[in-house]
C-alpha cells in the first residue's frame, strides 16, 4: 500500500513539523507518495525538507517515492527557478508537468538548491552568491555593504556543518521574501539540510555522559548551538555556529536548528518562537535556517 506524505500548502519552518509527522508515520521502506498538489508557497527550508526526505528514503534503500507536482503553474515555475526539480528528479518519480523556465537574474532566488558534498562545494556557493547577495541585502534588506561579507561567512559556516558532521551530503538554498503577512518586511532565508546522522549521534561519544539522563536531541542541540561544543577534540572547533550567532546578533537575525525530534532557536526581538522544542515528530539529519530581516531604518 502506498503511504501519502502531505506537503503543507504553505511549507515553511512553522509547518515543517506537520510534514515531518506525515513522513515519519511509517517505515522508510514503505512506498510513499509526496503530495504537493495543494502547495501554494514554500521557503527553501520546505523545499530542502522534501529533498532530505527523498534522500533519506534513497539512503535507506527504500522504494523510490512518487511525487505529484503543485497544481498551480506559478508555484511550479517558482520551484523550477529555485532548482528544486533538478535534484528532485533523482530522488522521486515525478508525476505532473514540470515547466521549462529560463534563469532569471532579477529573481529573488539568491541561490538555487545546491548540493553540498565536500568543501569545494562550499567554495562554489560562497563564490557565486556574493554579488547577488550584495544587491539584495542592500536593496531589499537595507543592510550596509559590509553585511554581505558577514552573510557569506554565515552561509559558509552553515554549509560546513554538513561536510563536517552529517556523514552524508546535503543541500543549501537561499531566497529573499516579502514576509508582509508574518513580519511586515522583507527577509532573506538561508536553509541548509542533510539526511545525515544528526547532532545527537554526532556528539554522543563526547557529550552524552556529561548530560546523563537529559541526553537527547534537545540536549545535543543545546550543547552545540548554545555551548559551542563539537565532536572534535580540537579546541578551535565549534566556532562556526558561534560566528553565525555573532552575525545574526548584529542584524537581528534568527537561527533555528532542527535535528531528530528537537529544534533550538536563537529568537530575535521581532519573533515569538520558543527557544527549544522537544518531542517533535522525528525527521532525519539536521536542518538549519537563518532568517535575516529588512532593517528598520527608523529605529534607534
Amino acid at each position, binding site marked *: 500500500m502506498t503511504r501519502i506524505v502531505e506537503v503543507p500548502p504553505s511549507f515553511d519552518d512553522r509547518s515543517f513539523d506537520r510534514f515531518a509527522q506525515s513522513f515519519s508515520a511509517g517505515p522508510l521502506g514503505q512506498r510513499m507518495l509526496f503530495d504537493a498538489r495543494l502547495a501554494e508557497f514554500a521557503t527553501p527550508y520546505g523545499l530542502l525538507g522534501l529533498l532530505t526526505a527523498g534522500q533519506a528514503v534513497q539512503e535507506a534503500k527504500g522504494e523510490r517515492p512518487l511525487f505529484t507536482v503543485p497544481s498551480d503553474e506559478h508555484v511550479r515555475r517558482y520551484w523550477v527557478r529555485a532548482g528544486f526539480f533538478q535534484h528532485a528528479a533523482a530522488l522521486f518519480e515525478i508525476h505532473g508537468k514540470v515547466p521549462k523556465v529560463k534563469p532569471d537574474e532579477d529573481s529573488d532566488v539568491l541561490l538555487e538548491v545546491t548540493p553540498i558534498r565536500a*568543501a*569545494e562545494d*562550499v*567554495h*562554489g556557493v*560562497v*563564490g557565486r552568491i*556574493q554579488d547577488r547577495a550584495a544587491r539584495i541585502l542592500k536593496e531589499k534588506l537595507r543592510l550596509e555593504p*559590509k553585511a554581505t*561579507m*558577514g552573510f*557569506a*561567512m554565515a552561509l*559558509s*559556516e552553515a554549509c*560546513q556543518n554538513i*561536510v*563536517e558532521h552529517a556523514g552524508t551530503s546535503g543541500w543549501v538554498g537561499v531566497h529573499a521574501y516579502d514576509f508582509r503577512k508574518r513580519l511586515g518586511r522583507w527577509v532573506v532565508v538561508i536553509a541548509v539540510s542533510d539526511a545525515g546522522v544528526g547532532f545527537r549521534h554526532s556528539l554522543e561519544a563526547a557529550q552524552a555522559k556529561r548530560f546523563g539522563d537529559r541526553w537527547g536531541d534537545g540536549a545535543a542541540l543545546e550543547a552545540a548551538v548554545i555551548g559551542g561544543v563539537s565532536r572534535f577534540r580540537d*579546541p*578551535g572547533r565549534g*566556532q*562556526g555556529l*558561534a*560566528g553565525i550567532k*555573532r552575525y545574526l546578533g548584529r542584524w537581528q537575525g534568527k537561527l533555528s536548528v532542527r535535528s531528530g525530534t528537537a529544534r533550538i532557536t536563537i529568537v530575535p526581538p521581532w519573533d515569538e518562537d520558543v527557544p527549544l522544542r522537544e518531542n517533535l515528530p522525528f525527521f532525519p539529519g539536521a536542518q538549519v535556517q537563518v532568517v535575516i530581516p529588512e532593517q528598520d531604518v527608523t529605529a534607534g
Partner: protein
Amino acid sequence: MIHTIKLDRVLRETVATPYHDLVTRPTGAAVRTSIEQAIAEADAATTLLDFSSVGLMDFSCADEVIAKLLLRTEPGSGHYVVLQGLREDHTEAIDHVLTHHSLAVLVISPDDDGPRVLGSLPPDLQVALAMVHRLGSTDAAGLADTLLWPLERAMEALEALAFLRVVQAADGAYQPILVQ
C-alpha cells in the same frame, strides 16, 4: 629579515578552485601547511602574511590558518608573524578566533600610526606593548620605572608579550618586532 607571503597566491596554488575566498577548514589547513613550508624554507625572523586580494575569510578558515599557525609555533623559536592588508571582515574573523584561543597577533596598516593587536591582550599587556613601541627597547626595570609599576608586574607583562610573540626578547631586553 622579513619574508612576505601573499595569501591569495598561496590559496591559488594550494586549492584548485577559481575562487579567492579563504573558506572551510580543509582549505585553511592546506593553506596553513603551505605557509609553514614557506616559513621553514625562508628562514626569516619575521613573516608578513599579506591578505590583500583575499576575498572572504570565514571563522573556520581563520582558525585553521592563523590560530593554528600561532599555536604550532614554539614560543622560543624566535619567529614572528605579522599580518597586513586586512579588510574589516578579515579583522573580525581573526580577532574572534584568536580571542577564543587567548592568542594575539600584530597587524600593520598604512592607515595606522603603528602596529595594532588582534586577539586577546589584557590591559597590562596593552599598556606594556605601547610602551615598548614608544621606548624602542626596554627591560623590566626600565618599564617599571616608566610606568611606576612594581618590577614583578613589569617583568610579567614583558614575558607574556614575548610568549605571545608580539615583542622580540633577547638577553632580558624587549623590543618591537621589525616589520620594515
